[in-house]
């Protein structure tokens, strides 16, 4: 990764859930840490999110859901992302995700899962470490 390259991040809200306090706080924290951050707003379909990731040429996609719909929606986002050939994108998730769902989501390819009470510094570090060496 060259020094000039800023890490590009898409923060997205799949599904019908309107709670985006956490999504916005994470977006702001990543931006304050020097990354380029795009926030999709609420009510995004998996297709819309994958398409935005492609169009915006992002390195990282962060998904936020508090409604419980992550079980069905996150795998569909991953599918759409794969369909578009975005192999190297780092996938993160946050919101209300019960412990028992964490391992299956990791297996699917969501590398970072951040629940309530997470420090944004930890998310920033995770993204930087994961991106180091890529590109």
């Amino acid at each position, binding site marked *: 990764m060259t020094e000039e390259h800023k890490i590009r991040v898409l923060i997205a809200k799949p599904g*019908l859930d*309107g709670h985006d306090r956490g999504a*916005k706080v994470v977006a*702001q924290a990543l931006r304050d840490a020097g990354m380029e951050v795009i926030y999709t*707003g609420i009510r995004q379909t998996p297709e819309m999110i994958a398409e935005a990731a492609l169009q915006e040429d992002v390195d990282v996609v962060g998904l936020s859901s508090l409604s*419980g719909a992550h*079980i069905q929606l996150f795998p569909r986002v991953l599918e759409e992302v794969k369909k578009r050939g975005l192999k190297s994108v780092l996938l993160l998730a946050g919101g209300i995700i019960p412990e028992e769902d964490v391992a299956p989501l990791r297996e699917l390819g969501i590398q970072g899962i951040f629940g309530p009470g997470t420090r944004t510094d930890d998310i920033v570090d995770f993204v930087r470490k994961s991106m180091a060496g890529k590109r």
Partner: protein
Amino acid sequence: MGSAAKSEWQEKVYEAAIKRAPERQAQFTRSSGAEVAPLYTPEDISGMDYGRDIGYPGEYPFTRGVQPTMYRGRLWTMRQYAGFASAEESNRRYRYLIEQGQTGLSVAFDLPTQIGYDSDHPICAGEVGMVGVPICSLQDMEVLFQDIPLDKVSTSMTINATAPILLAMYIALGKKQGVAPAELNGTIQNDILKEYIARGTYIFPPKPSLRLTTDIFQYCGEHVPPWNTISVSGYHMRDAGATAAQELAFTLAHGIAYVQAAIDAGLDVDRFAGRVSFFFASDNNLFEEVAKFRAARRLWAGIMRHRFEAKQDRSCMLRFHTQTAGSTLTAQQPDNNIVRVTIQALAAILGGTQSLHTCSRDEALALPSEEAVQISLRTQQVLAYESGVADSVDPLAGSYLVESLTNEIEAEAKAYLDKIEKMGGALNAIEQGFPQRQIHESSYRYQREFEAEKRVVVGVNKFCSPQPSAISLLRVSQDEQEKQKARVTELRRNRDNAKVAQSLEKLERVARGSENTMPTFIECVEAYATLGEICDVLRRVFGEYKQSVAF
């Protein structure tokens, strides 16, 4: 000889003491960042006039409470917000809560119901029954209230964009049970403005949405007089990060917009204002919250009397529901949440709430389990029956601290209200993204303070313990979603579809015109038109709101 004045004490005694031993923190602040003084004395409230600013309970400006006897006459309504999976499951939970001594129902709808889609619409994948009960038609409503006589309960429905349709179903269900509309008791949230700022379950643009709001005011004024036609809500803005003063100010700004819209639609203020109710969060800072509730009553009373020239006292009363603040609940050490909820519930009671939902310890992890809900209901019952806090009206009045904070929060809220007024009112402020930005800034500031450990959250950034607490969580089964989809498909096959089509055509005509939409909504739901079909008509006529992401 003691000090003669606060300033003397401060200079001679206090300064000397902190020179010897500094305080725990350089600053003690409330949610807005305003500093809390080390001491409040009669000097801090010397400008107050008891009769004018505080007064007696049940009398203008209602600072001390809206009823003369408050909880000595009747306790607040204990109302746990519930709904999940399906109408059957939710009905079972309601009957359980009633058996446990709950005194009012509070219906949580799933997101598709709130946004106007039937459970089988592709956009609803994964959302059906997740955060509330799915209601596609009057048929689901019949199941939801099976064996619950509507003349015996008061029902609060958290429903906004689709409020008139769910209310129409409730009225239709009452008729089927033999209960006249005038005997129905309850509340619909019906507060669309805050949906554009936080929470996000809007469908239509603000103008047609406000028309639906005022249609409800007018219809209920004539046909369902006991119904609380709106619950102007600060709760969701607070949970999204607003400070206490922002919560209060933005809520009252919305209240002003609704009252104005109804007056503009030709309604007499004293005919509907008495049915306007409010909904606030109760957060962790006990005294700030109590002060917020007291300031809310005084501010609203003044607005109704002076700005809208309401003649009846009833129109000036700010009655409110409280929910303990969900955003304060932690996933770590979830049992600690029981203690947080107790403090927050206490603040709501000391602040004179009319009804209360206490959150459950597991809500940072999932929807609450039955066991967790029982603890939170018992929390209210212990406060009500054992603590003695309900035995005297507005017990914190006269506290130098609480009266000072009441004045301060009122002033902070007034400053925001003035700013919103200069922007041309709440609608313009929302369009310009003003409350959205303010709330985001507050939430981000809170996060920074939390990470810098200036705000301690026990069990999360201090006093952490490694072992996870094993508690069993409620899980909504995916089978329920499939069953619900099958139910709505079957309904569409078995009903009188000609009658449905007729009612929907009529709705389109009425929506395009200016007559009250409520009677036609009732006709549609009685024909078993689905929520999604009704909203499709309205989406066609009114268009859809597009959120502008100011980020």
